[in-house]
């Protein structure tokens, strides 16, 4: 107790408030966009990163003073935000509500890759000369940088308040947030409003990027995702479209993190955010400051599944296709065979995701977690001496059970909340793998995973492992198609179309969601486990968010719910950039563009949703 009291609580509070005001800056933009466009902007973290690099260009490369840097960063961030709205969001006006969310994921990938291309992948220092002031207050101190950040935050909030409540455009923004249709009827130009809001959000996000860079004297091209999540957690705390709530949520999150780090150590930092997120989604989905006792039902499950019939491929063509794919090793190009093996492993993962995202309608952005569970389970079991064949089966079974259990908290969520919830669950799995050192060796990863073999028959030659993975794909594709034609397929689709109506007709929707995630987990677990034996080394980052986004892109390209589509799309998406080496460098750009163009021009995918 003595030692707890002797911690520098004042300093932790200050750093919590400072970090919290940055989260608040991010959250305000997200909340404004959610309010007006009903959309979680997954590209918001990338705007933050862009802001930090424009800040670096101004302050370091051009040597501008701080005030000018802030202005340029704000203007540039505003332009980036407005362009996102104009180019990626506006064309999707008449599409399902999950479509723009997926588009922002694509935009995020593209922006991040552009920053990578221009500035390289390594963090940079961002030294800004501020008066070296430190005020001592009691046992703690406040520095000039703390004050700068806090004051910038307060000024931004005030400017926003004046805009929203004392300008005509601000009034239009509030009206649109309350009732978009009514505002439109009154002659409010929705496009202009959306663009304004994206612009403001972009400016605030970019300023946040600059401030964080100054605070840590470091900017990182890989920061986008984490900071976007923090902003998202803050708006979930504050109540999604509630702007003052977002500020409160940001500060609360900053303080929770700061105190949490004080008590448990820095490696748990992100775990606090995700734990808070999950608790909020489960217990108070309307946010801390909401009085309403029940969330409005968002009839959004499965709305991305378009009313298009899937392309039916005759059985002979499927068999011919399978035979052709089986003959790939005959080309005598081991590299191509390896690439195809990898693509087929993605096909397994995509079949798994297309079942839950397409057939069941729960768009998951954390599917890589299931691959990771399968990979770690099989690696650990076989390293403990189990034969590989048994390891694969057990790993798949473990992933099936964990897959259903872990995603259970997301079952009651709908629409955008499913995306946030599954994302959080996926990240929590990665963080548990990272921090459960006694089991997983933490950030060291697992070395020397036994190679593929079945009952003493080695399968680690390039061709043997290719045929083994192909056999898995064919077997599980047939099983999945058979399930889809049974009462289970019917029941899953009914849940996707209208969960409440399905419940009303006796479908225990949570149970059937669990069944789907169980089967999907089994398939994903096999995919992850085989990958682990192929790579012989895995760590917590082997299956990361990019993997999840990639699998989701494959699933959308193939057509949601479409099993053959998933396989074809996996070969295109996972195979193409590798075959064309030049493309490999710009892989993220390729994926981002693919996602964006697909959602815009062919939301039903190549083979049609099923």
């Amino acid at each position, binding site marked *: 107790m003595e030692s707890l009291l002797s911690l520098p609580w004042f300093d932790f509070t200050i750093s919590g408030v400072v970090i919290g005001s940055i989260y608040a800056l991010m959250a305000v933009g997200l909340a404004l966009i959610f309010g007006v466009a009903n959309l979680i902007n997954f590209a918001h973290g990338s705007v933050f990163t862009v802001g930090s690099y424009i800040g670096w260009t101004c302050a370091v490369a051009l040597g501008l003073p701080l005030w000018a840097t802030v202005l340029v960063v704000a203007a540039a961030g505003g332009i980036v935000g407005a362009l996102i709205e104009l180019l990626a969001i506006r064309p999707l006006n008449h599409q399902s509500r999950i479509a723009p969310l997926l588009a922002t994921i694509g935009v995020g990938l593209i922006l991040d890759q552009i920053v990578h291309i221009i500035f390289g992948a390594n963090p940079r220092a961002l030294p800004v000369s501020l008066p070296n002031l430190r005020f001592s207050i009691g046992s703690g101190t406040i520095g000039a940088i703390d004050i700068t950040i806090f004051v910038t935050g307060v000024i931004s909030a005030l400017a926003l308040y004046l805009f929203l409540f004392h300008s005509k455009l601000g009034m239009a923004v509030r009206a649109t947030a309350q009732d978009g249709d009514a505002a439109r009827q009154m002659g409010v130009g929705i496009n202009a409003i959306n663009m304004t809001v994206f612009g403001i959000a972009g400016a605030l996000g970019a300023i946040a990027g600059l401030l964080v860079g100054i605070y840590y004297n470091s900017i990182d091209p890989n920061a986008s995702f984490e900071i976007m999540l923090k902003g998202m957690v803050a708006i979930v705390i504050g109540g999604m479209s509630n702007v003052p709530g977002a500020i409160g949520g940001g500060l609360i999150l900053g303080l929770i993190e700061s105190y949490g780090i004080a008590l448990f150590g820095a490696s748990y930092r992100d775990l606090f955010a995700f734990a808070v997120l999950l608790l909020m989604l489960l217990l108070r989905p309307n946010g801390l400051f909401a009085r309403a006792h029940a969330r409005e039902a968002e009839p959004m499950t*499965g709305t991305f*599944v378009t*009313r298009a*019939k899937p392309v039916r491929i005759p059985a002979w063509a499927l068999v011919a296709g399978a035979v052709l794919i089986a003959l790939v090793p005959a080309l005598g190009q081991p590299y191509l065979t390896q690439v195809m093996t990898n693509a087929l492993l993605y096909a397994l993962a995509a079949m798994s995701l297309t079942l839950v995202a397409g057939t069941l309608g729960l768009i998951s952005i954390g599917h890589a977690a299931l691959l990771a569970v399968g990979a770690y389970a099989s690696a650990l079991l076989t390293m403990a001496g189990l034969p590989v064949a048994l390891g694969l089966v057990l790993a798949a079974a473990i992933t099936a059970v964990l897959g259903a259990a872990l995603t259970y908290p997301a079952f009651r969520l709908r629409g955008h909340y499913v995306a946030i919830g599954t994302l959080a669950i996926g990240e929590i799995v990665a963080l548990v793998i990272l921090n459960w050192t006694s089991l997983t060796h933490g950030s060291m990863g697992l070395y020397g995973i036994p190679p593929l073999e079945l009952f003493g028959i080695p399968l680690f030659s390039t061709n043997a492992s290719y045929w083994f993975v192909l056999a898995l794909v064919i077997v599980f594709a047939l*099983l999945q198609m*058979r*399930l889809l034609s*049974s*009462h*289970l397929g*019917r*029941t899953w*689709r*009914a849940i*996707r*179309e*209208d969960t*409440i*109506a*399905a*419940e*009303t*007709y*006796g*479908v*225990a*929707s949570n*149970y059937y969601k*669990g*069944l789907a995630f*169980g*089967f999907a987990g089994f398939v994903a677990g096999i995919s992850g486990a085989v990958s682990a034996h192929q790579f012989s080394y895995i760590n917590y980052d082997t299956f990361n968010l990019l993997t999840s986004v990639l699998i989701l892109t494959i699933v959308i390209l193939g057509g949601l719910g479409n099993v053959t589509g998933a396989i074809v799309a996996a070969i295109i998406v996972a195979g193409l950039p590798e075959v064309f080496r030049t493309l490999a460098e710009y892989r993220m750009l390729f994926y981002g563009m693919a996602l964006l163009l697909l959602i815009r021009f062919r939301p039903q995918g190549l083979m049609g949703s099923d």
Partner: protein
Amino acid sequence: MATEGALLSATGITRRFGGITAVDGVDLHVREGEFLSVIGPNGAGKTTLFNLISGQDRMDAGRVTLEGRDITNLTPHRIAENGIARTFQHGRVFGNLTVMDNVLIGCHTRLRAARSRVPVLAPVIEILRALIRPAPVRAEDAAMRAEARDIIATFGDRLTPRIDQPTYSLSYANRRRVEIARALALHPRILILDEPTAGMNESETAEMQQIIGDLKAQGRTILLIEHKLNMVMQLSDRIMAMDNGKVIAEGTPAQVRNDPRVIEAYLGHSSIGGTAPAAKSLTEGAQ
């Protein structure tokens, strides 16, 4: 009426939204084979009451029993398993499912392939049954399909030619018919219809009234919400009128039609909100 002998008994049903009491201590009893209609102006709490009985919403106070079993605040799927089927005011079919599959979902509570009682392993058994499909599962599936076809055929040639079409391609009236077919497939002990003719034109309404009349003639127990009072007066054994969350009158069509409180509920609202179409049709219904 006496509570005993009622198939469905709801007593003291109350639901508050914030400061508003949408349903305020309502009692409702339906006998086996009875046709009970609930009428009242918009916002009277009719749909909320039905949502509470069929489990879409949770009541703050009250108790519902079906054949003596307490079904208060059970989840919707449990209530369905107990034999209550309902349709929705705005029609909620599964758009991307075919007519046949929509009706088959109605059979779900009776599906033995989905009813494994083995503890822990039940999910695995259900998946294996769906994959392997042993003879009993195939036989059950065939029987359900045959039955679904029969139910669909009760709507004449409205649905049968479209049996393999997705329901999003159907007309509004046909979708409402699919909903009723789906409800019948549940073999309900009690059938709850929430404005089955909403948005239908006169000939469609007449056709729907014919179908509901046939259902009544089969001896089914039916609870109906409906604004078209002509239809209510002709079909109902008993009518319950609600206003402001409370029951204001209850009795035979003749009694309710002439009840001054019912007329006032409609006309009273009209003095605030201009002409009330419902009040007009009430007097028409009385002619």
